[in-house]
Protein backbone atom coordinates (compact mmCIF):
# COMPACT_ATOMS: atom_id res chain seq x y z
CA UNK A 1 0.00 0.00 0.00
CA UNK A 2 2.76 2.36 0.94
CA UNK A 3 4.49 1.40 -2.29
CA UNK A 4 1.50 2.31 -4.46
CA UNK A 5 1.08 5.54 -2.59
CA UNK A 6 4.71 6.44 -3.22
CA UNK A 7 4.33 5.67 -6.92
CA UNK A 8 1.18 7.69 -7.39
CA UNK A 9 2.52 10.56 -5.33
CA UNK A 10 5.77 10.92 -7.26
CA UNK A 11 4.00 10.68 -10.61
CA UNK A 12 1.49 13.32 -9.62
CA UNK A 13 4.22 15.54 -8.24
CA UNK A 14 6.17 15.35 -11.48
CA UNK A 15 3.02 16.04 -13.50
CA UNK A 16 2.10 19.06 -11.41
CA UNK A 17 5.59 20.56 -11.51
CA UNK A 18 5.68 20.02 -15.25
CA UNK A 19 2.31 21.71 -15.76
CA UNK A 20 3.32 24.71 -13.67
CA UNK A 21 6.64 25.16 -15.47
CA UNK A 22 5.00 24.85 -18.88
CA UNK A 23 2.28 27.33 -18.00
CA UNK A 24 4.94 29.84 -17.03
CA UNK A 25 7.03 29.29 -20.16
CA UNK A 26 3.89 29.53 -22.28
CA UNK A 27 2.96 32.87 -20.76
CA UNK A 28 6.45 34.21 -21.34
CA UNK A 29 6.69 33.10 -24.96
CA UNK A 30 3.14 33.84 -26.12
CA UNK A 31 3.66 37.57 -26.86
CA UNK A 32 6.67 36.82 -29.03
CA UNK A 33 4.90 34.00 -30.87
CA UNK A 34 1.86 36.14 -31.64
CA UNK A 35 4.09 39.02 -32.73
CA UNK A 36 5.99 36.72 -35.09
CA UNK A 37 2.81 35.55 -36.77
CA UNK A 38 1.56 39.10 -37.10
CA UNK A 39 4.85 40.22 -38.60
CA UNK A 40 4.78 37.43 -41.16
CA UNK A 41 1.26 38.36 -42.26
CA UNK A 42 2.16 42.04 -42.38
CA UNK A 43 5.20 41.42 -44.51
CA UNK A 44 3.07 39.53 -46.97
CA UNK A 45 0.43 42.26 -47.06
CA UNK A 46 2.96 44.96 -47.79
CA UNK A 47 4.55 42.80 -50.41
CA UNK A 48 1.37 42.24 -52.40
CA UNK A 49 0.02 45.76 -52.13
CA UNK A 50 3.22 47.65 -52.71
CA UNK A 51 1.88 51.16 -52.20
CA UNK A 52 0.36 50.35 -48.83
CA UNK A 53 1.76 51.93 -45.69
CA UNK A 54 -1.03 50.93 -43.35
CA UNK A 55 -3.98 48.57 -43.27
CA UNK A 56 -7.20 47.88 -41.46
CA UNK A 57 -8.51 44.45 -40.68
CA UNK A 58 -12.06 43.51 -41.52
CA UNK A 59 -13.99 40.38 -42.40
CA UNK A 60 -15.93 39.17 -45.37
CA UNK A 61 -17.79 36.04 -44.41
CA UNK A 62 -15.17 33.74 -42.95
CA UNK A 63 -12.18 35.45 -44.49
CA UNK A 64 -9.98 38.13 -42.99
CA UNK A 65 -9.64 41.02 -45.40
CA UNK A 66 -7.00 43.67 -45.06
CA UNK A 67 -7.98 47.08 -46.42
CA UNK A 68 -4.80 48.88 -47.42
CA UNK A 69 -4.11 52.58 -47.37
CA UNK A 70 -1.20 54.40 -48.94
CA UNK A 71 0.84 57.23 -47.45
CA UNK A 72 -1.89 59.76 -48.19
CA UNK A 73 -4.34 57.54 -46.36
CA UNK A 74 -6.11 56.75 -49.60
CA UNK A 75 -7.65 53.32 -50.04
CA UNK A 76 -5.26 51.59 -52.42
CA UNK A 77 -6.04 47.88 -52.40
CA UNK A 78 -7.23 44.80 -50.60
CA UNK A 79 -5.26 41.83 -49.35
CA UNK A 80 -6.50 38.45 -48.23
CA UNK A 81 -5.27 34.91 -47.76
CA UNK A 82 -6.49 32.17 -50.05
CA UNK A 83 -5.75 28.58 -49.25
CA UNK A 84 -6.37 25.15 -50.66
CA UNK A 85 -4.85 21.78 -51.33
CA UNK A 86 -1.96 21.57 -53.75
CA UNK A 87 -0.14 18.52 -55.04
CA UNK A 88 1.24 17.54 -51.65
CA UNK A 89 -0.46 19.51 -48.94
CA UNK A 90 -1.90 22.88 -48.07
CA UNK A 91 -0.91 25.95 -50.07
CA UNK A 92 -1.52 29.45 -48.67
CA UNK A 93 -1.39 32.50 -50.90
CA UNK A 94 -1.59 36.16 -49.93
CA UNK A 95 -3.39 37.94 -52.75
CA UNK A 96 -3.45 41.69 -53.31
CA UNK A 97 -6.23 43.06 -55.51
CA UNK A 98 -7.09 46.50 -56.78
CA UNK A 99 -9.76 48.52 -55.03
CA UNK A 100 -12.34 47.70 -57.69
CA UNK A 101 -11.54 44.00 -57.70
CA UNK A 102 -10.68 44.28 -61.38
CA UNK A 103 -7.16 43.03 -61.26
CA UNK A 104 -4.60 41.34 -59.11
CA UNK A 105 -1.84 43.59 -57.85
CA UNK A 106 0.48 40.78 -56.81
CA UNK A 107 0.58 37.49 -54.96
CA UNK A 108 2.87 35.81 -52.49
CA UNK A 109 2.85 32.13 -51.69
CA UNK A 110 3.23 32.09 -47.93
CA UNK A 111 2.97 28.40 -47.19
CA UNK A 112 3.50 25.27 -49.21
CA UNK A 113 4.95 21.77 -49.00
CA UNK A 114 5.24 21.05 -52.72
CA UNK A 115 7.99 18.97 -54.24
CA UNK A 116 11.32 20.74 -53.87
CA UNK A 117 12.75 21.84 -57.21
CA UNK A 118 9.46 21.34 -59.03
CA UNK A 119 6.18 22.25 -57.36
CA UNK A 120 7.80 24.46 -54.83
CA UNK A 121 8.98 26.76 -57.56
CA UNK A 122 5.63 28.43 -57.13
CA UNK A 123 7.45 30.67 -54.68
CA UNK A 124 9.94 31.89 -57.28
CA UNK A 125 9.64 35.43 -58.63
CA UNK A 126 9.30 33.99 -62.14
CA UNK A 127 5.99 32.38 -61.21
CA UNK A 128 4.64 34.90 -58.72
CA UNK A 129 5.38 37.93 -60.91
CA UNK A 130 3.12 36.53 -63.62
CA UNK A 131 0.19 37.40 -61.42
CA UNK A 132 1.02 41.09 -61.29
CA UNK A 133 -1.64 43.20 -62.97
CA UNK A 134 -3.52 40.09 -64.03
CA UNK A 135 -7.04 40.92 -65.12
CA UNK A 136 -9.90 39.50 -63.05
CA UNK A 137 -12.61 40.09 -65.65
CA UNK A 138 -12.51 36.41 -66.40
CA UNK A 139 -11.26 33.47 -64.43
CA UNK A 140 -7.51 33.06 -64.43
CA UNK A 141 -6.37 30.16 -66.53
CA UNK A 142 -3.15 28.21 -66.83
CA UNK A 143 -1.47 27.55 -70.15
CA UNK A 144 1.66 25.63 -70.96
CA UNK A 145 3.02 28.11 -73.44
CA UNK A 146 3.62 31.82 -73.18
CA UNK A 147 0.38 33.52 -72.14
CA UNK A 148 -1.50 35.44 -74.83
CA UNK A 149 -4.41 36.83 -72.85
CA UNK A 150 -4.17 39.09 -69.82
CA UNK A 151 -5.86 36.51 -67.62
CA UNK A 152 -3.49 33.70 -68.46
CA UNK A 153 -0.37 32.53 -66.73
CA UNK A 154 2.20 30.00 -67.76
CA UNK A 155 2.61 26.82 -65.75
CA UNK A 156 5.92 25.69 -64.30
CA UNK A 157 7.39 22.96 -66.47
CA UNK A 158 6.96 19.66 -64.66
CA UNK A 159 4.71 21.19 -62.01
CA UNK A 160 1.40 21.64 -63.75
CA UNK A 161 -0.63 20.43 -60.79
CA UNK A 162 0.98 22.83 -58.35
CA UNK A 163 0.61 25.73 -60.78
CA UNK A 164 -3.04 24.88 -61.44
CA UNK A 165 -3.65 24.53 -57.71
CA UNK A 166 -2.45 28.06 -57.03
CA UNK A 167 -4.71 29.40 -59.78
CA UNK A 168 -7.72 27.40 -58.55
CA UNK A 169 -7.15 28.56 -55.00
CA UNK A 170 -7.10 32.20 -56.09
CA UNK A 171 -10.10 31.85 -58.43
CA UNK A 172 -12.20 30.16 -55.75
CA UNK A 173 -11.40 32.79 -53.18
CA UNK A 174 -12.22 35.63 -55.56
CA UNK A 175 -15.55 33.96 -56.40
CA UNK A 176 -16.32 33.63 -52.71
CA UNK A 177 -15.45 37.23 -51.96
CA UNK A 178 -17.34 38.62 -54.93
CA UNK A 179 -20.49 37.07 -53.48
CA UNK A 180 -20.05 38.88 -50.21
CA UNK A 181 -19.16 42.20 -51.73
Amino acid at each position, binding site marked *: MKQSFKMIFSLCLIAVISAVILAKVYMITQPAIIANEKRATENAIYKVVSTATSYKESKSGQTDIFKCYDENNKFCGLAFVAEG*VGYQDLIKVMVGVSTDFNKILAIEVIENSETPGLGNRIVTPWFENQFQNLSLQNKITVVKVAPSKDSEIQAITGATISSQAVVDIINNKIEELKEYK
Partner: protein
Amino acid sequence: MVKELILVFIATVLVNNFVLKYFLGICPFLGVSDNLSSAISMGFATTFVMTITAPVAWLINNYILVKFGLPFLQYVCFIIVIASLVQFVEMVIKKFFPLLHQSMGIYLPLITTNCAILFMALQLVLKDYSLIKSMVFGFGSGIGFTFAITIMASIREELKFQDVPESLKGPGITLIIAGILALIFVGLGGLIQVK
Protein backbone atom coordinates in the same frame (compact mmCIF):
# COMPACT_ATOMS: atom_id res chain seq x y z
CA MET B 1 -19.28 11.54 -46.28
CA VAL B 2 -18.41 7.87 -46.57
CA LYS B 3 -16.61 8.62 -49.80
CA GLU B 4 -14.47 11.19 -48.04
CA LEU B 5 -13.59 8.70 -45.32
CA ILE B 6 -12.60 6.06 -47.85
CA LEU B 7 -10.40 8.60 -49.58
CA VAL B 8 -8.78 9.57 -46.28
CA PHE B 9 -8.08 5.91 -45.60
CA ILE B 10 -6.54 5.21 -48.99
CA ALA B 11 -4.58 8.44 -48.90
CA THR B 12 -3.13 7.65 -45.48
CA VAL B 13 -2.11 4.13 -46.44
CA LEU B 14 -0.69 4.79 -49.90
CA VAL B 15 -0.20 8.43 -50.74
CA ASN B 16 0.96 9.75 -47.40
CA ASN B 17 2.45 6.55 -46.06
CA PHE B 18 3.76 7.24 -42.59
CA VAL B 19 6.94 5.24 -43.00
CA LEU B 20 7.95 5.91 -46.58
CA LYS B 21 6.95 9.55 -46.78
CA TYR B 22 7.04 10.98 -43.29
CA PHE B 23 9.85 8.84 -41.85
CA LEU B 24 7.85 7.67 -38.86
CA GLY B 25 8.24 4.41 -37.06
CA ILE B 26 11.69 3.88 -38.55
CA CYS B 27 13.12 2.24 -35.43
CA PRO B 28 10.69 -0.71 -35.47
CA PHE B 29 10.74 -0.61 -39.26
CA LEU B 30 14.47 -1.32 -39.24
CA GLY B 31 14.48 -3.52 -36.18
CA VAL B 32 11.50 -5.82 -36.58
CA SER B 33 11.39 -6.26 -40.32
CA ASP B 34 13.79 -9.19 -40.67
CA ASN B 35 11.10 -11.73 -39.92
CA LEU B 36 7.73 -11.76 -41.66
CA SER B 37 5.61 -13.02 -38.77
CA SER B 38 7.06 -10.61 -36.21
CA ALA B 39 6.63 -7.78 -38.68
CA ILE B 40 2.95 -8.56 -39.14
CA SER B 41 2.48 -8.91 -35.36
CA MET B 42 4.18 -5.58 -34.75
CA GLY B 43 2.06 -4.03 -37.46
CA PHE B 44 -1.21 -5.25 -36.01
CA ALA B 45 -0.28 -4.34 -32.46
CA THR B 46 0.61 -0.84 -33.61
CA THR B 47 -2.57 -0.48 -35.67
CA PHE B 48 -4.64 -1.57 -32.71
CA VAL B 49 -3.07 1.01 -30.40
CA MET B 50 -3.26 3.75 -33.01
CA THR B 51 -6.94 3.15 -33.72
CA ILE B 52 -7.76 3.55 -30.04
CA THR B 53 -5.39 6.48 -29.51
CA ALA B 54 -6.98 8.61 -32.22
CA PRO B 55 -10.43 9.12 -30.68
CA VAL B 56 -9.02 9.34 -27.15
CA ALA B 57 -6.60 12.07 -28.18
CA TRP B 58 -9.41 13.87 -30.01
CA LEU B 59 -11.66 13.77 -26.98
CA ILE B 60 -8.97 14.93 -24.58
CA ASN B 61 -7.93 17.74 -26.85
CA ASN B 62 -11.40 19.05 -27.62
CA TYR B 63 -13.04 18.57 -24.25
CA ILE B 64 -10.20 19.29 -21.87
CA LEU B 65 -7.21 21.05 -23.35
CA VAL B 66 -9.08 23.48 -25.55
CA LYS B 67 -11.90 24.06 -23.09
CA PHE B 68 -9.52 25.06 -20.34
CA GLY B 69 -7.09 26.93 -22.54
CA LEU B 70 -4.15 24.58 -22.05
CA PRO B 71 -2.71 24.05 -25.53
CA PHE B 72 0.82 23.97 -24.15
CA LEU B 73 0.06 20.73 -22.31
CA GLN B 74 -0.68 18.96 -25.57
CA TYR B 75 2.62 17.14 -25.90
CA VAL B 76 2.75 16.02 -22.27
CA CYS B 77 -0.90 14.91 -22.25
CA PHE B 78 -0.75 13.01 -25.50
CA ILE B 79 2.37 11.10 -24.59
CA ILE B 80 0.87 10.16 -21.22
CA VAL B 81 -2.28 8.99 -23.01
CA ILE B 82 -0.23 6.90 -25.42
CA ALA B 83 1.92 5.37 -22.70
CA SER B 84 -1.13 4.57 -20.59
CA LEU B 85 -3.08 3.14 -23.51
CA VAL B 86 -0.19 0.87 -24.42
CA GLN B 87 0.02 -0.32 -20.82
CA PHE B 88 -3.73 -0.82 -20.70
CA VAL B 89 -3.88 -2.68 -24.02
CA GLU B 90 -1.07 -4.95 -22.88
CA MET B 91 -2.92 -5.80 -19.66
CA VAL B 92 -6.18 -6.49 -21.50
CA ILE B 93 -4.52 -8.72 -24.08
CA LYS B 94 -2.57 -10.58 -21.43
CA LYS B 95 -5.75 -11.30 -19.47
CA PHE B 96 -8.22 -12.07 -22.25
CA PHE B 97 -6.12 -13.24 -25.16
CA PRO B 98 -3.11 -15.01 -23.60
CA LEU B 99 -2.23 -16.76 -26.84
CA LEU B 100 -2.16 -13.48 -28.69
CA HIS B 101 -0.06 -12.02 -25.95
CA GLN B 102 2.47 -14.79 -26.42
CA SER B 103 2.94 -14.03 -30.07
CA MET B 104 2.88 -10.24 -30.13
CA GLY B 105 3.01 -9.18 -26.51
CA ILE B 106 6.66 -8.26 -26.48
CA TYR B 107 6.19 -5.65 -29.15
CA LEU B 108 3.63 -3.66 -27.22
CA PRO B 109 5.94 -1.72 -24.87
CA LEU B 110 8.03 -0.65 -27.85
CA ILE B 111 5.02 0.98 -29.44
CA THR B 112 5.11 3.80 -26.92
CA THR B 113 8.22 5.23 -28.52
CA ASN B 114 6.94 4.75 -32.04
CA CYS B 115 6.94 8.32 -33.34
CA ALA B 116 4.09 7.43 -35.66
CA ILE B 117 1.49 7.42 -32.89
CA LEU B 118 2.43 10.78 -31.42
CA PHE B 119 2.65 12.29 -34.90
CA MET B 120 -0.78 10.91 -35.80
CA ALA B 121 -2.35 12.34 -32.66
CA LEU B 122 -0.79 15.76 -33.21
CA GLN B 123 -1.78 15.81 -36.90
CA LEU B 124 -5.44 15.17 -36.31
CA VAL B 125 -5.46 18.08 -33.91
CA LEU B 126 -3.49 20.32 -36.26
CA LYS B 127 -5.77 19.61 -39.18
CA ASP B 128 -8.85 19.80 -37.04
CA TYR B 129 -10.36 16.49 -38.11
CA SER B 130 -13.77 15.39 -36.92
CA LEU B 131 -14.02 12.48 -34.53
CA ILE B 132 -14.90 9.96 -37.25
CA LYS B 133 -12.24 11.26 -39.59
CA SER B 134 -9.70 10.98 -36.77
CA MET B 135 -10.57 7.35 -36.18
CA VAL B 136 -10.23 6.54 -39.86
CA PHE B 137 -6.96 8.46 -39.95
CA GLY B 138 -5.65 6.54 -36.92
CA PHE B 139 -6.66 3.20 -38.37
CA GLY B 140 -5.29 4.13 -41.79
CA SER B 141 -1.91 5.20 -40.49
CA GLY B 142 -1.59 1.93 -38.59
CA ILE B 143 -2.45 -0.04 -41.72
CA GLY B 144 0.00 2.05 -43.72
CA PHE B 145 2.74 1.24 -41.24
CA THR B 146 1.82 -2.46 -41.31
CA PHE B 147 1.80 -2.39 -45.10
CA ALA B 148 5.29 -0.89 -45.27
CA ILE B 149 6.83 -3.12 -42.64
CA THR B 150 5.28 -6.25 -44.20
CA ILE B 151 6.62 -5.42 -47.65
CA MET B 152 10.05 -4.80 -46.14
CA ALA B 153 9.95 -8.06 -44.17
CA SER B 154 9.00 -10.09 -47.23
CA ILE B 155 11.89 -8.58 -49.18
CA ARG B 156 14.34 -9.12 -46.36
CA GLU B 157 13.33 -12.75 -46.03
CA GLU B 158 14.35 -13.20 -49.65
CA LEU B 159 17.52 -11.26 -49.04
CA LYS B 160 18.72 -13.91 -46.65
CA PHE B 161 19.65 -15.99 -49.67
CA GLN B 162 21.42 -13.18 -51.45
CA ASP B 163 24.94 -11.88 -51.39
CA VAL B 164 24.76 -8.61 -49.54
CA PRO B 165 28.08 -6.74 -49.14
CA GLU B 166 29.36 -7.07 -45.58
CA SER B 167 29.27 -3.37 -44.82
CA LEU B 168 25.66 -3.05 -45.87
CA LYS B 169 24.27 -6.07 -44.04
CA GLY B 170 21.38 -5.30 -41.75
CA PRO B 171 20.32 -1.65 -41.52
CA GLY B 172 22.37 -0.53 -44.50
CA ILE B 173 20.64 -2.64 -47.12
CA THR B 174 17.30 -2.15 -45.38
CA LEU B 175 17.59 1.60 -45.79
CA ILE B 176 18.54 1.29 -49.43
CA ILE B 177 15.54 -0.92 -50.10
CA ALA B 178 13.39 1.51 -48.16
CA GLY B 179 14.67 4.20 -50.50
CA ILE B 180 13.56 2.23 -53.54
CA LEU B 181 10.17 1.54 -51.92
CA ALA B 182 9.83 5.24 -51.11
CA LEU B 183 10.58 6.01 -54.73
CA ILE B 184 7.76 3.73 -55.82
CA PHE B 185 5.38 5.40 -53.40
CA VAL B 186 6.35 8.85 -54.66
CA GLY B 187 4.68 7.78 -57.87
CA LEU B 188 1.41 7.62 -55.95
CA GLY B 189 1.74 11.23 -54.90
CA GLY B 190 -1.06 13.51 -55.97
CA LEU B 191 -3.38 10.56 -56.50
CA ILE B 192 -5.71 11.73 -53.81
CA GLN B 193 -5.72 15.18 -52.31
CA VAL B 194 -7.04 15.31 -48.80
CA LYS B 195 -7.49 18.51 -46.89
